[in-house]
């Protein structure tokens, strides 16, 4: 244990920028002022201790699926809630279902959270982040690499649909149709370019597709989707 703790501090000093160093200084100085403030202010140590609650002794620096389940339970959020994605984005977690120690400390440190309670207070703030167009775009792009199987370049269709449901399901009126289109299509995977363009598409193209330019740069998948949607709408109109 102490060994890892020491390493973590060295890691911190080497990895984190000056801002963190100064924060640490401020924290240590505030500790002396009062215990109440100490409870409210961020403690690196407490944060790490909290992290350890979810890890196993075999792999003390990685929070695995089981720990994740417990963590979700503790903060009162279902694992498939979109907030978890935002949290992962904050931590810049590399792999879905896992947090490493560095990711944990970086993300929670940034948010000044070292306890369940503090994090719960911040959940609404995290949800709010989704409303910012630019941050949402960043989260959306991040989600692709986050959710993708790291052995493969592209994301398999099941994951992709789940992620799309999570991110666009509520806001994009054509999501249901798009999902149906994917079900009947020959596509087995979605590549990053297609992924990014789906967001663009959902944001810019009207529901009646009137402003869709077939000769534009849209990936062929979206051309096919538009084609498919138009024919199925035409069929519906006839019957």
């Amino acid at each position, binding site marked *: 244990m102490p060994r890892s703790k020491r390493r973590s501090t060295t890691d911190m000093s080497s990895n984190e920028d000056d801002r963190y160093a100064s924060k640490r200084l401020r924290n240590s100085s505030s500790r002396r002022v009062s215990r109440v403030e100490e409870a409210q202010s961020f403690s690196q140590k407490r944060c790490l201790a909290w992290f350890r609650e979810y890890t196993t002794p075999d792999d003390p620096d990685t929070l695995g699926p089981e720990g994740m389940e417990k963590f979700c339970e503790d903060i009162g959020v279902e694992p498939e809630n979109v907030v978890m994605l935002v949290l992962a984005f904050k931590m810049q977690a590399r792999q879905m279902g896992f947090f490493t120690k560095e990711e944990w400390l970086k993300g929670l440190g940034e948010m000044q959270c070292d306890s369940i309670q503090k994090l719960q207070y911040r959940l609404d703030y995290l949800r709010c982040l989704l409303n910012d167009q630019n941050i949402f775009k960043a989260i959306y792009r991040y989600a692709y690499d986050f959710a993708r199987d790291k052995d493969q*370049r*592209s994301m398999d269709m099941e994951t992709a649909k789940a992620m799309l449901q999570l991110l666009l399901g509520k806001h994009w009126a054509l999501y249901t149709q798009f999902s149906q289109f994917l079900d009947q299509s020959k596509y087995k995977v979605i*590549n*990053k*370019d*297609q992924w*990014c*363009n789906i967001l*663009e598409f959902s944001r810019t193209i009207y529901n009646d597709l009137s402003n869709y330019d077939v*000769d*534009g*740069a*849209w*990936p*062929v998948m979206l*051309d096919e989707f538009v084609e498919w949607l138009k024919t199925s709408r035409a069929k519906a109109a006839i019957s």
Partner: protein
Amino acid sequence: MSRHVSKIGDPSPLKRLDEPQISKKIRLEIEVDENMSDNSPDRNRRANFSNVNGVNRNLNIHSVKPTTKKLIIKNFKSEPKLPDDYNETTWKKLSSAVIAIQQSKPNEYLLEELYQAVGNMCSHKMASELYKNLFELIDAHVRSNIEKFKTETMDRLLFLKKMNDTWQSHCNQMIMIRGIFLCLDRTYVLQNPNISSIWDMGLDLFRKYFMLHTLVQTRVVEGLLMLIEQERQGDKVDRILLKSLLRMLTDLQIYNKAFEQKFLQSTERLYAAEGQRLMQELEVPEFLAHVDKRIHEENERVLHYLDSSTKYQLIHTVEKQLLSEHINNILQKGLDNLLEENRLHDLSLLYQLFSRVKNGLQELCHAFNAFIKKQGRTIVIDPEKDKTMVQELLDFKDAMDNIVASCFKKNEMFSNSLKEAFEHFINQRTNKPAELIAKFVDSKLRAGNKEATEEELERLLDKIMVLFRFIHGKDVFEAFYKKDLAKRLLVGKSASVDAEKSMLSKLKQECGGGFTSKLEGMFKDMELSKDINVAFKQHLNINTPELMPLDMTVNILTMGYWPTYLPMDVTLPAQMVKFQDIFKEFYLSKHNGRKLQWQPTLGHCVLKARFKAGQKELVVSLFQTLVILLFNESDEHGFEYIKAATNIEDGELRRTLQSLACGKARVLNKIPKGREIEDNDKFKFNNDFVNKLFRIKINQIQMKETTEEQKATEERVFQDRQYQIDAAIVRIMKMRKTLSHNLLISELLGQLKFPVKPSDLKKRIESLIDRDYMERDKDNSNQYNYVA
């Protein structure tokens, strides 16, 4: 000038005045004289007018400086006196003469006398009264003349004839009268610009009464129109009468107002009805002939009796009613037939007629274009007609070229349209025409094709190149051409090296060196191989003379130039292997670092075989050779044994055995008999083989293979295209670094030489993005960035 003077003195001025043109000219000249003589006021009083012109003219010419002679001449003169009743008596004389003329009675006075009397009156200031009197006289006569017609109710033709007579006599009388009153015309009329000459006065009066009595006028015009209508219906009519009356209208200056408009209207009505009717009744060629006839007739009409100013409008009206109105009908109804049946004469007529009307040629060209596209499409699109497609295309092109050249006067618009249409329909079916053209060329260039001489072949190749030019996917052509060329070269079946070279140079000219470099490489390989073989034979003679004399020829094919052949491993007889090894050693010693790979599929051999009936030479493929050689060991082998011994691929072996045991020349017998080769079949050497030829070629059975080959060739072309697209995208992006989607697409379409759909390009772009050769701009999804 002397001519002029004598003419004035001419007792019968009638002849001269026949032509109003000339009389006008004379009048002009006189005018000049008068102006000149105005210089000296006393000259007016001179009685001896016949001298005046001549002498004075001469005088005036020299009279820049006045001379003393002039004075002397003046003194000669004494004032003549006229009797007091001269006016009355003279007018009496004159009026009686005029009335005599008008009534066509003999004149009791000499014309000379009358003429001089008029002259005298003019010089004694009685001109205006004279003119007035004359006017009244003529007025009365013309009025009574015309009024006669008012009450006449005779037949139209008769009416016209009478009218014409009246007019003719009026003209004659007026000429006569004018002759007598010439002095009046020359002095009084000229000095008073408001008064018209005697001739004009006659016309004016005639016009006045003619116009006044509209009934007469309408009857004349209607009569004329009726005559013309009759002529249009094919009757013979009195053209001279028509001409004369129309001239009358022209002279009276009412041709335009009274006649022309009505005439054009009736023409329009007639031809509008005729056009509608005949369009329904007649076939297009007949209709065209009819229109041509009509236009010709109307031209004649203008030539014979109409005023030439009517020509443009008349012809225009006919063209409009018979052609312009029916352009679409004619084209829809008849053009296709004419083109199909190659009716050059009718087509020429069609072109010639259509060139007369506005937009006619454009419409014709348009319809011509549509016809070619439609017709061409039927040639190209039907897979059942693949066998004859190229020949049909050539014939079709010839026919169309001929039509453009001989019927459409080589109009550039048409030849361009022809090209455009060909290019359009040939590419309606992708790839197949290119493939078939390549195969067609192959069939022409292959040996044994004796149907054409060198020159004919050359001309044929030129024509094929024209078709080739229209093809978009030239790479498909190249792939098939290359495959066939390889066959021709390797089997030595090429009809003539010259023809091959000429075709190659044509291709090079058309598509550039890049297109033909591989084909040229193939020829080079063949030539190098010849040299190598000669060297190899010498090598063998020197180094290993003890080897059995097996004649081996090796063709060294450079990989990349030639089509790719699947390498096959087969078991060769030890003899051959030995030769191969020797050759390999020999070749590699010369060309260090190269790799040789044997292609057994392409080899062929000549075998000597002894049958009961005698010795034969068999020209067979390497695979056939391997099978036949097995029968040197034993007369009978099972399928499995042959397969194991030769190691030939199963399908290939079955085909080979089929060719040897089931084909025309059966050197093996299959047990049991049958077309298909089964696993348990046995094969026996056919010692009873007979054939009248000594050297026998046993063809490989290839039917199945060609479809496979064809598919493979196509596949390879498509694969190549993908690489080419990828390469082009990367090349462009590398140069531009960032580029918007549309610009990239358009640049690609400019660079790629085969037809591609934008969606295909998009797929390749996405694939390149996926492979990190480029990326989509983070902020602008319509823009790509090159990734180094």
